[in-house]
């Protein structure tokens, strides 16, 4: 019991234990902040990455595959499948109203079915809101106010259906682009966007500032290159498309490079719609005289094709084993489908059926390894705390040599004296780790404002969304990780106290009493 009394007194009466506690506080906080941010980053990556795609993707990127509607119907009968949607993936070039050209990833989707397999509707940024987002104290978010020439409800509905009313009043297919693609929207500190004035090229070759709100006024020229079966570009197809809305998935890479267009427009531009086409047939060379100029050409009836079918699981597919179970079910369905359409669709062993995690395994694995590496590095740094405590305790034991002699004189055992220093280390560990946890929680909870302040006051941008994919830094401390770091902090401190405790225990009582 004397150990508790002396530990309490030593803790508050000396500067050295405070220094030891500060070392534990800093190390604990540092490890927890890094772990929380990196783990949050990984969680966001897995979660947000699935915002715009399915849990499992059936993909044949070369030429696409036909009869996809039948496959989707089959998939919808599978109990593990909640929804499936056809998609075309391609690359294209857009010309923006200010004359800027940009390469983009183009995704052809059916608005409603795409919304069933993804969280697409939630990502549509331009929509009516009644309350400002957090930190928008001045209510600067344009969505809070009415918009001239259209309404937020109409813009949202346009986004859902990928359409916009043309100048003639007719509803036309339209594009939904990532909120960062055009660079006409400026992200504010609260996380909302404000459309900016844009340069616009005039017919006389000059430029002028114009108020340009893409979902109301914006049109882009989209150019796509349809490919033949061998992957060679047949020709370049361009089309003017109005912008229906803009999405914000939270993943910078997606928001700055992806545009969505109606599936039928993508099929039409990429020559993947149902049509009778003249195609080259190398085998036909041997049998000339079928009416074409080139004996290698022939007329075929081509069904509509897509490059991907996205599948959403009926369970909340997030865990790897659930995703693998869903993938196996999709593979079984596709196998039966391919059997029925032998020679028309790729066989099951050729087609790519991948979970979202498998599709992005390189990136996810890199982040996981980076997290482990950072943790190991910071734990090595934290070992410094162990040695720091050892050094501080070592000198404290020297300073308290006489006290140790007194305790031994009144009957304290060697183990009891060792226990005093170990419990002292334990107390510093508990105090330091608790305060370290509080500090880490405060930092992580406010990491975005802190980061914004650093950016404003010192021009330091640590978290660049172009590198880290996300525009905001993960700001959640997971309780299980906090417990692990707490226990590790307490253990480190206790381990650091062990050697000085052994020194105190082995001290000869008479020598200790005579110590000067």
């Amino acid at each position: 019991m004397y150990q508790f009394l002396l530990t309490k007194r030593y803790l508050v009466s000396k500067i050295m234990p405070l220094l030891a506690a500060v070392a534990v506080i800093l190390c604990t906080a540092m490890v927890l902040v890094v772990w929380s941010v990196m783990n949050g980053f990984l969680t966001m990556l897995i979660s947000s990455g699935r915002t715009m795609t399915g849990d499992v993707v059936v993909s044949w990127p070369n030429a696409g595959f036909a009869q996809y509607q039948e496959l989707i119907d089959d998939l919808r009968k599978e109990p593990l499948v909640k929804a499936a949607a056809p998609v075309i993936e391609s690359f294209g070039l857009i010309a923006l109203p200010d004359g800027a050209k940009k390469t983009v990833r183009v995704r052809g989707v059916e608005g409603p079915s795409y919304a069933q397999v993804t969280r697409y509707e939630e990502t549509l940024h331009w929509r009516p809101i009644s309350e400002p987002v957090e930190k928008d104290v001045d209510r600067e978010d344009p969505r809070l106010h009415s918009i001239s020439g259209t309404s937020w409800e109409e813009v949202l509905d346009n986004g859902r259906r990928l359409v916009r009313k043309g100048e003639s009043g007719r509803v036309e297919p339209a594009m939904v682009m990532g909120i960062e693609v055009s660079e006409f929207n400026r992200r504010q500190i609260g996380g909302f966007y404000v459309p900016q004035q844009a340069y616009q090229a005039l017919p006389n070759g000059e430029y002028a500032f114009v108020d340009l709100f893409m979902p109301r006024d914006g049109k882009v020229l989209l150019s796509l290159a349809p490919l033949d079966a061998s992957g060679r570009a047949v020709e370049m197809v361009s089309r003017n498309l109005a912008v229906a809305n803009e999405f914000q998935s939270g993943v910078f890479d997606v928001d700055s490079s992806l545009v969505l267009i109606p599936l039928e427009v993508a099929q039409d531009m990429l020559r993947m719609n149902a049509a009778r086409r003249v195609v080259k047939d190398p085998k036909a060379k041997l049998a000339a005289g079928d009416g074409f100029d080139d004996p290698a050409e022939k007329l075929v009836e081509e069904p509509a094709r897509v490059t991907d079918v996205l599948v959403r699981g009926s369970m909340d597919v997030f865990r790897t084993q659930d995703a693998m179970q869903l993938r196996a079910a999709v593979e079984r369905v596709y196998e039966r489908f391919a059997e029925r359409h032998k020679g028309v669709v790729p066989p099951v062993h050729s087609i790519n059926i991948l979970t979202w995690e498998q599709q992005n395994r390189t990136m996810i694995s890199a982040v996981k390894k980076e997290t482990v590496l950072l943790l190991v590095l910071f734990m090595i740094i934290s070992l410094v705390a162990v040695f720091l405590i050892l050094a501080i305790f070592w000198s404290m034991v020297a300073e308290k040599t006489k006290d140790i002699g007194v305790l031994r004189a009144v009957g304290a055992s060697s183990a009891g004296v060792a226990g005093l220093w170990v419990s002292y280390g334990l107390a510093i560990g508990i105090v330091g780790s608790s305060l370290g946890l509080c500090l880490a929680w405060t930092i992580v909870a406010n990491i975005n404002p802190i980061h914004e302040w650093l950016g404003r006051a010192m021009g330091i941008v640590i978290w660049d969304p172009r590198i880290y994919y996300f525009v905001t830094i993960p700001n959640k401390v997971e309780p299980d990780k906090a417990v692990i770091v707490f226990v590790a902090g307490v253990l480190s401190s206790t381990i650091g106290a062990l050697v000085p405790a052994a020194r105190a225990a082995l001290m000869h009582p008479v020598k200790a009493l005579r110590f000067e």
Partner: protein
Amino acid sequence: MNDGPASSANPAALRETASDACLRVENLHKTYALGRVKVPVLRGVDLSVAEGGFTAILGASGSGKSTLLHLMGGLDRPDRPASGVSSIRYKGRELAGASRSTLDAYRARETGFVFQFYHLLPELSVMENILVASMVRWGLAWPAHRGAATRAAEELVEHVGLSHRKRHRPAELSGGERQRVAIARSLINEPTLLLADEPTGNLDQKTGETILEMLLSIRAARRLTMVVVTHDERTAARADRVVRLVDGRVAKA
């Protein structure tokens, strides 16, 4: 009163005084190493202490009197002599070869130490300095004895005249007051043997006399066996028996 010294060279005298002895040491040797040099401090001390008596061990600096006190109090162990066997017996129990835990218990329950330089714990108050010895004695059972120990500590504080200083720390006390706290601490576990190493050596004459009077009255009231190491003849003159140590041996009368 002064019985005169016992002598290792006079076994008959030893037997005589040992008849009512509670503490008996025989053939004690102790050598300290100062670097490579070995310095013999005790060279075969024989001594017995009568139960309830006040024995003064008198000697010059370096004569080995504090070392003898530490050996009697179980703070140190004697060397193995070249001939014969070293022995420290307290109430019939051998301490020279006792285990560490036996010595720890002996110090906690049966002895009380008073040092020349008080040796109080600077972070603790007067009450806590006294109670810490009780905490050491009772270990994990301390909460069960807390009430009784606190009452005993308060009585002791009152007895040594420091009721008004209970919450003060050692740095806030005078030398005499510190020594009174040390005396109270040595008594909290109700020892039967009180060992004092120059208890008045760091005090002025008047305060030293007060402390000595206090020790004597406590000894009488509690029927304590008291061994006081001193180089002060006046202190030794108050003892029942005086043992003179010269060059690590008990001097002949």
